[in-house]
């Protein structure tokens, strides 16, 4: 099934195995990348993509297996060695330093004397060659997410890598920006014979941008093919290991839902019964307006999607709704009552639950037990005036764990020992317990596998059916289109438009994401 290839591939991995303790992240993985191709590496979260790339970058040492670069075996013991071999990577999360200018960031890691003119010339040359306009003198913190990504790519390309790895590069890009990036990658491979490895969990992207594709599942190579010979459905099946429908599950895999499964709820959009009303919500941080006069209403029993590309103010909105950041201006009403956000815990007391964007950051206490994490917002129910009541704590935790199918060795196990999906269920269970009127779910499926994603979708639906207003903050277009009945788009900290899902198309949403009226 391997397509015809030239004699010596630019990169070949043979039988790479990497274990972390008892967990085998990569199990005898073979990967063959040719010069002049964009090679897609597809897999769910936890399938071993990142571990494989860390091996390739010399960040972790493989347990067994050989790596051949242009037919020669290499040790790859350090990141320096990987760099000298011409392996470069654009990381999923930016590795730029905010307070420095673009050229300073690009020069970081160079050895010898820093020559500003030479660095700027280098940047200009790379920019011109690939069509990646950047201003070397601009400070990084003044750039948009898309521009930062461009700087990362320029920084990497200036080092003249023969093998360029991009890890989930489109998560911060608008659709137009993604298209531009793919065009640049085409130029990189077509004209100069470099190789690109594109890591993604989004099927549509892999299908569109790659020449060949390798699918990883549970640390093993499940499938490899020439991309044009496959279909997204086939790739989806290989990625998950079973048949997937193209509705809900497809959305979980990054395919647009084929039909609107959420018929009948469009009409339930009842602005009279608003359970969450944000009015003129503004946050200014360090003199910069990161959230600009956001107005948003969520009615009881409806799911409102807030769609936008990463880094456009969603995080700060999430922090405000979690009670971590006080807005500079504006009001928040929950179930008709204005909430005094300066009082700690006021939002949760008013009936607002939130599944935060980064659950380790503000969702759970990793080193506390499952029971403690499940009850930490309802101490009144599980303690007397002074002392905690262990029996009540465990009883409440047991009930929630059963209701939300939380798989845990015991209720006393630290949350750290749970899988990502179960950690997320702990957060969801806690936030929906008690008298919750509004649930804010910020990127609720980030980092989850398909099964956990479907479960999350079902639970959000059920919450809405039970009359809870759900605000779904998401960067996944497919997710928003599959779940929400009304979609608002956020761009540069402002709501650039809102429309019912029946009128929403990827094109219109894409324009709003870019800040244009649709």
């Amino acid at each position, binding site marked *: 099934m391997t397509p015809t290839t030239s004699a010596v591939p630019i990169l070949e991995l043979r039988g790479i195995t990497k274990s972390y303790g008892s967990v085998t992240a990569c199990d005898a993985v073979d990967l063959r990348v040719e010069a002049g191709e964009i090679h897609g590496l597809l897999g769910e979260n936890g399938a071993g993509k990142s571990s494989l790339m860390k091996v390739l970058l010399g*960040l972790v040492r493989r347990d067994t297996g050989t790596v051949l670069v242009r037919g020669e075996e290499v040790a790859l013991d350090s990141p320096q060695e990987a760099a*000298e071999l011409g392996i470069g990577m654009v990381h999923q999360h930016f*590795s730029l330093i905010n307070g420095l200018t673009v050229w300073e960031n690009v020069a970081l890691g160079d050895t010898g004397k820093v020559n500003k003119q030479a660095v700027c010339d280098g940047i200009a040359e*790379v920019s011109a060659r690939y069509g990646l306009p950047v201003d070397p003198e601009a400070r990084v913190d003044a750039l948009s997410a898309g521009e930062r990504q461009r700087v990362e790519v320029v920084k990497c390309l200036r080092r003249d890598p023969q093998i360029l790895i991009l890890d989930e590069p489109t998560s911060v890009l608008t659709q137009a920006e993604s298209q531009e990036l793919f065009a640049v990658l085409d130029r990189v491979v077509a004209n100069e014979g470099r190789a690109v490895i594109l890591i993604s969990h989004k099927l549509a992207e892999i299908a569109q941008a790659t020449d060949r594709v390798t699918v990883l599942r549970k640390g093993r190579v499940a499938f490899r093919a020439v991309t044009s010979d496959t279909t997204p459905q086939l790739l989806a099946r290989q990625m998950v290991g079973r048949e997937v429908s193209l509705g809900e599950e497809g959305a979980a895999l990054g395919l647009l839902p084929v039909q609107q499964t959420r018929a009948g709820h469009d009409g339930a959009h009842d602005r009279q019964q608003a359970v969450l009303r944000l009015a003129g919500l503004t946050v200014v941080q360090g003199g910069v307006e990161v959230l600009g006069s956001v107005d948003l209403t969520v009615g009881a029993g409806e799911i409102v999607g807030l769609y936008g590309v990463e880094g456009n103010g969603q995080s700060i909105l999430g922090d405000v709704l979690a009670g971590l950041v006080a807005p500079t201006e504006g009001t928040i009403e929950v179930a008709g009552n204005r909430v005094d956000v300066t009082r*700690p815990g006021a939002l949760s007391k008013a009936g607002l639950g*939130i599944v935060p964007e980064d659950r380790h950051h503000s969702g759970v*206490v990793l080193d506390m037990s499952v029971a403690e994490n499940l009850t930490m917002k309802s101490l009144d129910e599980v303690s007397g005036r002074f002392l905690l009541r262990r029996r009540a704590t465990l009883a409440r935790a047991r009930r929630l764990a059963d209701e939300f199918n939380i798989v845990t060795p015991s209720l006393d196990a630290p949350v750290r020992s749970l899988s990502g999906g179960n950690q997320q269920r702990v957060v969801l269970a806690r936030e929906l317990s008690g008298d919750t009127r509004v649930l804010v779910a910020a990127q609720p499926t980030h980092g989850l596998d398909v099964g956990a994603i479907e479960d999350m979708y079902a639970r959000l639906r059920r919450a809405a059916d039970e009359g809870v207003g759900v605000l779904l903050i998401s960067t996944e277009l497919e997710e928003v289109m599959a779940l929400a009945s009304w979609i608002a788009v956020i761009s540069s900290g402002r709501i650039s438009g809102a429309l019912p899902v029946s009128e929403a198309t990827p094109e219109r949403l894409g324009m709003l994401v870019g800040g244009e009226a649709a």
Partner: protein
Amino acid sequence: MRAAPTMAPDDLGRRVLAHLRPGRDGWLTTSLTIVLVAVALGVSALLLTLTGASPSASLSAIWTGSLANTTGWTTTLLNAAPLLLVAVGAAICASAGTFNIGQEGQVLIGGLFGAWVGLRLALPGPMLVVVVMAAAAVGGGLWAALSALMYRFRGVNVVVSTLLMTFLAIQLVTFAVSTPWLQESAQGSSGIADAQSNPLPADALLGGLGQYPSMQLNAGLFLALVAAVGVALVLSRSRWGFRVRMVGLNPLTAKHTGVRVAALGGFTLALSGAFAGLAGGLLLASPVSPNRLQAGLSDNVGWDGLLVALVARNRPLIAIPVSFGFAVLRAGGDFLSATGVPYYLVDIVKALLVLAFVAPPLLVGLLRGRRGATPPTPFPLPAVPTKMKAAV
């Protein structure tokens, strides 16, 4: 006014405390500890030999001074009480993720407040000693609260400020006992007054339990033991303790659930200062000191108590035996130095032992981080250092 840094937890302190958190030990940490303790003892023996002392004679001197007879072990227990109080205080704020290393100064300020009250107030009998202790606790608490306020309003790192406040405390006490404010009345024919306060009246001192001349045990030990057990229970079983632990383990989640993170963190810091101050009061009123205020009153009790907390990894109950071990070294060390061995050698031995206990968890943590032996973390990796020939 600049926004208070409520969202930026005290990073340095938190990182150290995270590594010292109990419950992460594997066999590697345990075996490394055993090896390092052996190395520490070996180096200690070597140092003793090099200075001309005999290790075995020194060991027996320490034994004689600390445990061999009634005088020895009462001295040891008298030494253990203030150490334990300091360590218990350190454990409280460590649970909230705040690293207080200024106990030495807080002990001294506790002594200052205690001495002032003890010398100025004429209260009947047992009342006075209670008031002296309370004043000492308040003094230490206020001193630590200054660091908490500096962090709250100006973002001053707590580790740094508590440390530096110690030197300020030493100056302040030295000043207080050199001026009419607290200096002793001139004595004898020379009419020279030393830089120390008058001795405290007998009513301000903790009396011995029972009438045994060689056994001077007093209520201080019981106070410290009750504090250790009480704090352990409060931290693990009470609502307040639950909140404190939440703030220590994840301040953002704590804030989300409605905890006043900044206020609680500051309060635990003040509380830990109060425990150190109480230890200062205990020193003042206990036969281990000359019962008067001097700049040397604290005599490293603050530092040693902090070390007890470090070795006990901030567990109050574990601090009980550890403080006893440190007290053995203190009491035995005093006896040892009387035999001609320099006292600083005892300090070196103590330091080596502390390193042997504290270094392994930190080392193993660092090693794990380097080799990537822990499962992949959800946090972004640091930028990859690249070494390249000049590009283009």
